[in-house]
């Protein structure tokens, strides 16, 4: 195979179609198979296919080398195809270009039509009229010629922008209690959580989560803002997002000599108390607790109307007791006294710095514009000669014929 032939194949529509199908098929696998789990999961869950799944990276489809190669080939194909077709498209945008009508195309001329009136209608419809030897030629929407190239360029920018953006994106998640300060030395500021609030509806369900924060800079400058879901906070080029929340509960353990240890536990966390070899497991804090028919504690709302703690105690790893406690109520076990005193809401925030987003948006804009050019501003040409009206367009031949027939019809109507 010659280099020319190879390049033609690499930039061909045929390869583009194959890539579309492969990318779609590979993506389907990613939606059907659980992604990003341990290799053992696939081996155990799919005994016959497990090794194939991991070998072909079906367990991490969207970050796999196969997927990246498909996308790389897709970009090469798209870029090559665009470079191949663009010169021709630019040529067709010039005013002197007028394509030949199809020999088998319909003649839309009507016997009783008024050609001058027809010409006037076309001018009002913003057609550019060029005089010809036997009549005139009308053209419109030459910009539509480059529609597909603009779309392709947009897609290339989206893929490259997201790929490079994700490579260099910085992202993280952190929890904060009111009063906590989280430093971001790499960005030159810190974030202090002044307050975290839940907005409630009349029925007690949560309407929104609000984090009141202050941005602190080393030079002393500070400013405050509130973020909530769908309202991220932008500091320089870093975006902060309201992501989650939870309850942090204060545990106090009093020893036989009156010595005290304190810990802050989130739901599902444990604390190991070494002097007594005790493990305190906070099954959950339920601010408005009720018990289900299955005997499970749940909270009806996040309002602290009927607060209780569900606590499990272990000694040397052996279960000792399971208790439901009110705030301040203690468990006395041997010489140790365990008390959950109170709980506070904490906020979960995500930060992300991603310069690729702006390119993705630019690409999206170009892609959409390109599609609008292609589908609605596609080039339309009308050749008008003696007893002959022929339309020329690639995009919507039947529809364009239909429109021109209507214009011809208008030109046959006598003005009163």
């Amino acid at each position: 195979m010659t280099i020319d032939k190879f390049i033609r194949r690499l930039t061909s529509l045929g390869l583009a179609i194959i890539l579309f199908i492969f990318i779609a098929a590979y993506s389907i696998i990613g939606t059907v198979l659980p992604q990003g789990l341990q290799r053992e999961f696939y081996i155990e869950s799919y005994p016959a296919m497990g090794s194939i799944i991991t070998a072909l990276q079906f367990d991490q489809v969207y970050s796999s080398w196969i997927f990246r190669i498909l996308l790389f080939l897709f970009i090469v194909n798209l870029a090559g195809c665009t470079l191949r077709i663009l010169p021709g498209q630019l040529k067709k945008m010039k005013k002197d270009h007028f394509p030949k009508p199809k020999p088998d195309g319909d003649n839309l001329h009507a016997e009783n039509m008024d050609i001058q009136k027809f010409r006037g209608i076309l001018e009002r419809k913003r057609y550019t009229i060029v005089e010809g030897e036997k009549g005139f030629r009308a053209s419109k929407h030459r910009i539509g010629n480059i529609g597909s190239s603009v779309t392709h360029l947009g897609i290339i920018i989206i893929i490259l922008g997201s790929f490079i953006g994700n490579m260099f994106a910085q992202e993280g998640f952190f929890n904060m209690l009111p009063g906590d300060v989280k430093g971001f030395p790499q960005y030159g500021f810190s974030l202090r959580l002044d307050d975290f609030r839940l907005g409630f509806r009349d029925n007690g369900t949560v309407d929104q989560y609000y984090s009141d924060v202050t941005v602190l800079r080393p030079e002393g400058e500070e400013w405050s803002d509130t973020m909530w879901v769908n309202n991220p906070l932008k500091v320089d080029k870093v975006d902060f997002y309201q992501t989650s929340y939870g309850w942090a509960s204060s545990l106090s353990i009093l020893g036989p000599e009156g010595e005290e240890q304190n810990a802050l536990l989130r739901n599902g966390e444990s604390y190991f108390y070494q002097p007594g070899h005790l493990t305190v497991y906070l099954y959950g804090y339920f601010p408005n607790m009720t018990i289900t028919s299955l005997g499970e504690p749940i909270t009806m709302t996040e309002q602290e109307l009927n607060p209780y703690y569900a606590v499990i105690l272990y000694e040397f790893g052996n279960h000792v007791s399971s208790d439901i406690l009110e705030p301040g109520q203690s468990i006395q076990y041997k010489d140790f006294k365990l008390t959950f005193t109170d709980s506070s809401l904490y906020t979960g925030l995500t930060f992300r710095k991603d310069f690729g987003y702006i390119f993705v948006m630019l690409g999206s804009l170009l892609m959409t514009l390109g599609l609008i050019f292609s589908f609605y501003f596609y080039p339309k040409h009308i050749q008008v000669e003696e007893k002959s009206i022929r339309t020329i367009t690639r995009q919507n031949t039947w529809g364009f014929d239909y429109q021109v027939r209507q214009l011809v019809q208008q030109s046959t109507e006598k003005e009163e």
Partner: protein
Amino acid sequence: MDLVYFEELMFTLAFAGYTLSAVLFFIFVAMKKESIGKIAISLTVAGFGIHTVAIILRVIESGRLPFTNQFEFATSFAWGIVLCYLVLHFAYRFTGVGAFVMPIAFLVMGYASMLPKAIKPLMPALQSGWLYIHVGTAVISYGSFAVAAGLAAMYLIGERQKETGDGKTVLPKSEVCDYLSYRVIAFGYLMLTLVIVTGAIWAKYAWSRYWAWDPKETWSLITWLIYSVYIHLRFNRGWKGKPAAWFAVIGFISVIFTFIGVNNILPSIHSYR
């Protein structure tokens, strides 16, 4: 009697109107009586008007557009199908198209009628103006694809009629079905592109990432890729006729899976029930 009662009444009446119009369209195609076609169209318009009232009542009840759970999207989807069909009808006056599009609207309304209709407050992630742009474009896009699938089905049946030598038909010429199906898909494809782009912008605001390969996002992309293949083959290879019609049907199956399948089968942050 409150608004909920009237909303359900209007929904039921619209459903009945669409059902009856679908039946009448079939009779029209079978008997080729123009008067039946006119009644079917009038019923469709009436059903659409009543359906619009039902949606407006729900908007008044909930204080927002009905785009937030499966029932609301299904009823909006059916509304979008009928809207696209009526626009096409009043532009080109091909009455027979209704026999292939209205059954789809009927099925989507039937699906909606089986879903819980309770109005629930918006969860924090949905409290955004992008909801209306993102889901609104989806309603129009999916509606267009449904109409295109109906046109494609009509093409396939029209071709079969030709093969069996049944010359009498009230359906548009096969060539016209083919072209219209393509143009409607082109519009739906543009709208689907906007659905994906607006979804990406919104996801960036709500979840920090504009794309997370969530099953709903991925299936939207798969649907977009299927229609991309269709458009490329059509435009560059002159793909017409049966293969194009089958592709339009396959594309619509992907649309339905993206809506119903992903919500019910695949775990997704988009599964709002």
